[in-house]
């Protein structure tokens, strides 16, 4: 079983050289800590920076330099700043090679719900709807089950949708799964996790073909 860092480490393996990448708040932001050796990627933050870098050293925080999660950051060499319309032009115009975000629910047809629990939590969708509607390559980072042990990988989302038929890949604390026309396809198991465990935790259609390898994470 993986923790949040483990999920981030596994997704970081999907990064390719010279990609532009948007990381959502939560688990996805951790991915920036695990960029594979020898590859260069540029992180875009929806609030208007390309070339987002690490958190500043203590005492060097700049209130005018934050990321989408309102955390203080620093710019990398080669970074650029722009307004929100330009930012979403990059996103909607499909200039970004990889989008990673969290989810409350993912359906086996690729629908995603991650912005509202009616009557309880209505924080808003932020940039999520723009991101999922436009991106070609969307990976969801999430826990496989919720706090009550219920599956978050469903036949159909029960919560209000953020986007339809858009998720390509899901990485959870238990598994890596691709979304196919037949549903979730199991690609890898988390270290120490059995196929049986994954089947029990997945409510949506799950395809298991052949031997399923374990994730290789250090």
């Amino acid at each position, binding site marked *: 079983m993986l923790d949040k860092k483990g999920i981030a480490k596994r997704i970081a393996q999907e990064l390719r050289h010279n990609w532009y990448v948007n990381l959502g708040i939560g688990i996805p932001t951790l991915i920036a800590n695990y960029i594979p050796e020898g590859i260069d990627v540029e992180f875009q933050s929806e609030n208007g920076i390309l070339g987002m870098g690490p958190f500043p050293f203590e005492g060097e925080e700049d209130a005018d330099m934050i990321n989408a999660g309102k*955390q203080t950051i620093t710019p990398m060499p080669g970074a650029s700043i722009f307004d929100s319309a330009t930012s979403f032009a990059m996103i909607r115009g499909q200039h970004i090679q990889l989008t990673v975000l969290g989810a409350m629910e993912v359906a086996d047809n690729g629908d995603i719900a991650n912005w509202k629990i009616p009557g309880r939590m209505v924080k808003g969708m*932020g940039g999520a709807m723009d991101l999922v509607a436009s991106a070609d390559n969307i990976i969801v980072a999430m826990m496989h089950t919720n706090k009550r042990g219920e599956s978050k990988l469903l036949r159909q989302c029960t919560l209000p949708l953020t986007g339809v038929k858009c998720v390509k890949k899901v990485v959870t604390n238990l598994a890596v799964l691709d979304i196919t026309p037949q549903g979730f396809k199991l690609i890898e198991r988390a270290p120490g996790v059995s196929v049986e465990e994954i089947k029990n935790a997945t409510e949506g259609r799950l395809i298991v073909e052949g031997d399923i390898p374990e994730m290789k994470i250090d």
Partner: protein
Amino acid sequence: MNKLVANVQEAVQDIESGMTLMLGGFGLCGIPENCIAALVEKGIKDLTCISNNAGVDDFGLGLLLQKKQIKKMISSYVGENDEFERQMLSGELEVDLIPQGSLAARCQAGGSGIPAFFTPAGYGTEVAFGKEVRYFNGKPHILEHALTADFAIVKAWKGDRYGNLLFKGTARNFNPLMAMAGKITIAEVEELVEPGELDPNTIHTPGIFVQRIFQGEKYEKRIEQRTTRERLMVND
């Protein structure tokens, strides 16, 4: 050209209850702190506020929410403000949550003479309710309309009496777009400079979009999440 006003009170003097306002900023970054404080002091009510976020409970737009001066919010994310969530869930506050990219584009459109446009964002979700759908390149898009406001209130780093504005870092965000879309745009700046001091190549918002400008003061520039990394012990 002289768009200078003496102070914030003069800048906001004709903003009245019931009006629609646009306010720049992302979180607390780039918010027009002086104008928000002045609006709280004016005590006007029933405002419709278009702003990406709602501040935090005790700063930014949260100050107007606390005093129940806002009737309706049009935003994309309000998660940092518990009072906001409470007022919304109880029905005291009307809320239109719209995708951030659509909000940005709708403001820009409002100032650009583009009355409406199609976007894929929100298709298949509750954001699309009641909106026309059209297919382009085999993909569904929904019709969104431009947004304008009685007053757009923006915050910039530097500006001059022509109304030209330069923003700093991620404090830029929605400010240039909202500056275009206000019937009257008020700009508060950290540093008022002489015409000619700003290199024309570096101006982010040409003065044509700005009607009033004043030198702001005592910016708190609150940081919501002060995140840092550790220095290594050896030469860094």
